[in-house]
């Protein structure tokens, strides 16, 4: 699976963002992470290969129970569905 990496000074958490290239809320989540200098990796699921889509489905489903975009996973544990500044702030200690 090909993730794009964005480097940042705030790299004390492993942050993975599952996004859609057409989704405004995903774009806002990326902008928020960028503004706060958070290091993260992301993938545009709509542009991913078919077999990767299935893997992503399994990952998100097993961690969050429902599938929605954006889904941000912090340290493989905390799952944040949607663009939720409050939850991102708390999980990333921004």
């Amino acid at each position: 699976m090909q993730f794009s990496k964005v480097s940042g000074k705030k790299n004390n958490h492993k942050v993975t963002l599952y996004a859609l290239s057409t989704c405004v809320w995903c774009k806002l989540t990326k902008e928020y992470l960028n503004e706060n200098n958070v290091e993260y990796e992301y993938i545009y699921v709509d542009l991913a290969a078919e077999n990767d889509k299935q893997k992503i489905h399994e990952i998100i489903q097993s961690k969050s129970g429902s599938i929605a975009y954006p889904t941000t996973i912090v340290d493989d544990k905390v799952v944040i569905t949607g663009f939720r500044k409050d939850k991102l702030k708390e999980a990333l200690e921004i």
Partner: protein
Amino acid sequence: MTTLEEVRRRAEADAKTFGYYLTPQPELLQGFLEGLKTNEDRYGYPSCPCRLASGIFEYDRDIICPCDYRDPDVAQYGSCYCRLYVNKQVYESKDLPEVPERRPVEKQARAYGTQAAAAKQAPAQGTQEKPSAKAEKTPSGVKKKLWYCKQCGYVVFREDPPYICPICKAKREMFAEIESTVEFNG
């Protein structure tokens, strides 16, 4: 190729018809319209920019904007899932609500991996199965049926009945399947 202006005009006209408003934040609105245009260019129909489409029309039928979930979501939360369409109260307050996903998980799952890939590869013809009198099976495996609104008589040929009747606003419970039988005489 659809222009952004066409996508905007269509959304505005649809909002007007149903008594809705488009999202009050201009930068969000621009993003939604661009997402719709991208999907229309990519798939041939404007599927929801906030959901993953399969690229197979029958699988994505319920998330073509305005999606099947818009009317019940606006009625319950004041806004659709994306927050493109909102009601007057939300429009005036500019306070966009959180809207949970109403689309059933089994429909979401169709956009992922093998099932979608298999349907894409399947030939349009050549299925051995005979069409049933009640339900028509498309190449994607989606079974469509005839449904009618018991309140106003509106008839729709879809996998599921609408959540809200587009004609008389009756709830889904008012829809019943039309059972058709064919008899041969003489």
